[in-house]
Structures are given as C-alpha cells and as structure tokens.
C-alpha cells in the first residue's frame, strides 16, 4: 500500500472493486485448475421466486439448504439485500452465492464512494453477470453452480426491474415473474396461472395479496420437492420475503408473515 499512489499511472476503469482487490493482493477467486467432475456432495439452496406487484418487486425464498438427501439447515437466507435498492436471490451452492453477494455489495458501495455517484441499473445487472462468468470454470466442473435472480428499483425510469441469469452469466430481463431452484417448476406454473387467469394480474396486486401468493407458491413447491422447505409455524420458520419499491428494500416481518399465513391459508 505504501506505494499505491506512487506508481506510474495507467488509465484503468475507475471504481472497479474486484480489480482493486487483486491490486491489493486479495484474490476474490483463484483460477480453477482441477479437472473432472466433482464428487463432493455440495450444499444446495433452492427455491426462490420474484414477481412485480403494485409497488415494485417482491422477492421470496424458502429457508432450506440440503446436501444430497440431507437437510443441512432450515434457516438459510437466500434473499440478500445488496444495497438500498437491490436484492439478489440465490439458488445453488451457498458457498459461492454468498461470496458473490458480498463482492457485489462491496462493489456497489465502492463505486458509489469512489465515483461519487450511484452505479446505473444496467451497470449493476452487468456486474453480477461478470461474477457468474468468472465462476464458469467451476460451474463446468459441477462445483459452485449458482443461478440467481436480481431485482432492483430504477430511479431514472421509475419502476421495479427484475432479471434472471443462467449459469454462464447471461442476463434475462423479465416483465412479470421469475423463479429458480428445484421447486421452480411448481412456482412458475402457479405464477403463470395467477397472472393470466387469477382475479388480477400480478402487477396489480397489493403487498398483502402478493405476500399471500408468495407464501402459497412456496408451500406448493415444498409439497412435492424435498429440497424446498415450507412454513414451520411451531419453529417459527417462515420464508424470507423482501420488497423493492421506491422507498428501497424492506423485509416483511415474521409477525406480518404469520398473520397473513394464518388468515390466507385456512
């Protein structure tokens, strides 16, 4: 660090945190040098969903983490706040996903502090894409596969924006809803049905109705998918549900979830 400011200057992209890490001798991700498929039974996190509702975007995830047919953890948090207006939800290997979330969070703050402006929505979406791409070597070997959702609020063109990614880092913007993880087929079916033939399209629903729908969709996924955890009222385990609106990211409290769950699911 002693010489950080004294080296001959070269032009580089300002405000890139991952580059700053490598310049400071902290490798975010070493090159993958192994070969052959992994035989380790990896911890996996599933099922996440997100859809646009009246005020913005709602993101929800169950709480179960599994390794093979073992339930590792029943209180995993897969819906992560990245900054005041962005949420990343993860399906896949938490070891990789949580690290990606940490890099992303620091990248956005680093950019804001060094450049004295917020990163654009496109810039943020692209940053996650790049992390997935950097992870591709591992993913190809079957280690640390992550398939995230990313939701944010665009202040330039007011409105929620929602993206899903594939393993290689391609980003897809969605207009209505997205789901990922092992329970996602059931969730997608429900969200599609509700959006087309429900009493209101998803983006016309109130926060309360949206929470109720998210809870029902996750319960349905848990019904047939053992890797998805449902609601456990006795142990106070509820899905994590966050909203992204003009006001920023908010977490729906356990109390609210419990009350909506009881009223909405007789």
């Amino acid at each position, binding site marked *: *660090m*002693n010489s*950080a*400011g*004294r080296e001959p200057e070269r032009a580089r992209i300002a405000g890139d*945190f991952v580059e*700053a*890490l490598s*310049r*400071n001798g*902290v490798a975010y991700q070493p090159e993958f040098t192994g070969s052959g498929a992994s035989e380790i039974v990896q911890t996996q996190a599933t099922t996440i969903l997100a859809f646009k509702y009246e005020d913005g975007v709602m993101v929800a995830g169950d709480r179960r983490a599994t390794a093979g047919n073992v339930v590792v953890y029943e209180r995993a948090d897969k819906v992560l706040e990245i*900054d*005041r207006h962005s949420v990343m939800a993860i399906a896949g290997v938490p070891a990789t996903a949580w690290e990606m979330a*940490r*890099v992303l969070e*620091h990248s956005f*703050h*680093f950019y*804001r*502090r*060094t450049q*004295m402006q917020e990163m654009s929505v496109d810039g943020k979406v692209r940053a996650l894409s790049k992390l997935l791409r950097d992870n591709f070597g591992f993913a190809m070997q079957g280690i640390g596969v992550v398939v995230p959702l990313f939701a944010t609020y665009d202040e330039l063109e007011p409105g929620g924006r929602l993206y899903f990614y594939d393993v290689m880092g391609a980003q897809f913007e969605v207009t209505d809803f997205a789901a990922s993880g092992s329970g996602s087929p059931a969730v997608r079916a429900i969200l599609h049905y509700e959006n087309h033939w429900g009493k209101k399209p998803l983006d016309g629903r109130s926060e309360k109705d949206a929470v109720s729908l998210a809870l029902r969709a996750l319960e349905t996924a848990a019904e047939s998918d053992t890797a998805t955890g449902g609601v456990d009222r006795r142990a106070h385990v509820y899905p994590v549900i966050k909203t992204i609106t003009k006001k*920023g990211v908010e977490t729906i409290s356990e109390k609210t979830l419990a009350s909506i769950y009881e009223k909405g699911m007789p």
Partner: protein
Amino acid sequence: MTDEPYRYVEAMANRREYVENQLATGSPIVALSYDGGVLFLTVGPERQKVFEIYDRIALGALGHPGDIERLRMIAIEVASTEGFTRSPVDVSLRRLTSYSFSPMLKNAFEQVYGPPFLARLLFAELGRKHELDLFVRLDFDGSLQTSGVGVAREPFGVLAGTRRAMNEMHDFLKTKDLSSPKLSTALDLASQAWGVGTFYTRGQDHREKPTDESIADVLKEALKTNVLEAAVLECGAPEHHAYRPLDSSDVEAVIVRYRGSD
C-alpha cells in the same frame, strides 16, 4: 545531498517550507459532534472537499486536488479491502490513520527525490456511542493528532492552511459548550469556527482575536462568491449510508444569516 546530517536537516526544512507555503491559503474545514452524529463544514468554490470513505468514516481535505484525490482513493481502497476480507466492523479510523496513512505520508515526505503529498487531511469516525466519535488530523509529513480520550477528549477536529489558524480555531471551539449540540447549533458553531480560521488564514499577523462582528464579516464576504459545503455522518441511518451531504434547505439558516435571503 542527504549524506551529511546538516544537509539532510536543511533539505527537510526547505521541503517543509515549500509544502506549507503551498497549503497556506487553503480554506479551513471544521468537523464537530452533534446530537445526531458528526458534522463537516467548509466554505469554498464548487469543488467538493468533504468525502465519504467508509460506513462510518468521512474525510475533509485541503491541498492540491490531484493529491487529495489520490489520498481519498487510497483511503477508500484500504477501508473497503479490509471490510471485504474481514468485516465492516473491523474497519477503524485509528488503524487506518496510524498504521496505513501516517507511515505512507511520512515516507513520501522524507523521500527527498520524490514529490511529497501537498495535502492535509481531517478524518472523522462516527462512534458506536456519542462519546466515541473520533477526529484525526493528518499532516503532509505523517504527523497525526487525534481528538483524545477521557477528560482530555475534544468532540471536534479542525483543519486549515496554517498552524496559527488551526490553533485559533481550536481555541475558539474550546471555549464553547459542545455537549451534544443540535444540528442547527453545530452548524452555527462550525461556520463561526470556519470564520475564525479564515480570519487568520487571510491575515497571518493579526494580533487580536476576531470579534463576533469580524467573524460575521468574513462569512458574509465569503458567501458572496462561494458555497457552503456541509455533510454529516448520521447515527441511525441505514447501514452503509451514514454519510449524507446536507442540501441547501439544511444549511439555509446559516446562509440567510450571513448573506441575507436572495
């Protein structure tokens, strides 16, 4: 040149004089604890002089813009890298200034064949408790002055182009009641302290302390052509967002008092 002791001392003295001359006309900066956090205040042309460094750390700087920029980047980079590899809670101003900045600045100052940093820095850290707010001033030669602990603790930090101006600002604030002022009171005190600093920056040979009127005159004159820049580190703000530049409605009272309403 530096192989003889006398020449070395002479070279250092020349260098010190050169840097001090470069910094002498810089606009003062005041940082002050108030009941909701820490306030930074300065007056100057549009160029920003107060910056966010990390979750609870901010920086005010005077000197050459290029050097300020390099030091600001280093501070953010060191704090962010540590916050990432360990945890944001592990980032502390005491360690940032004592272990990273002070040796680096001293080194740059003493390497006679390389350029020194033409800058003087005032860092503040928002404490977990009000009485733990910390202020650290770092000079171009790496010397370091903190706001102290226990009974000797002072809930403020000052920065100016000359040593005299800094001493006078310090003495001015020392006479005031600084036990958890409200933001409006803190803005008043900070702008007056800025006025004292500027009074002595402009007139090195002032013998008498400035009166309230002469402080007001300094501010009136300055606000005709300059902007008042203020920022806070706020207690209870969302995580990672303690730093907030104040907007014109927050500082309007001060401006109206000295400039009159437009």
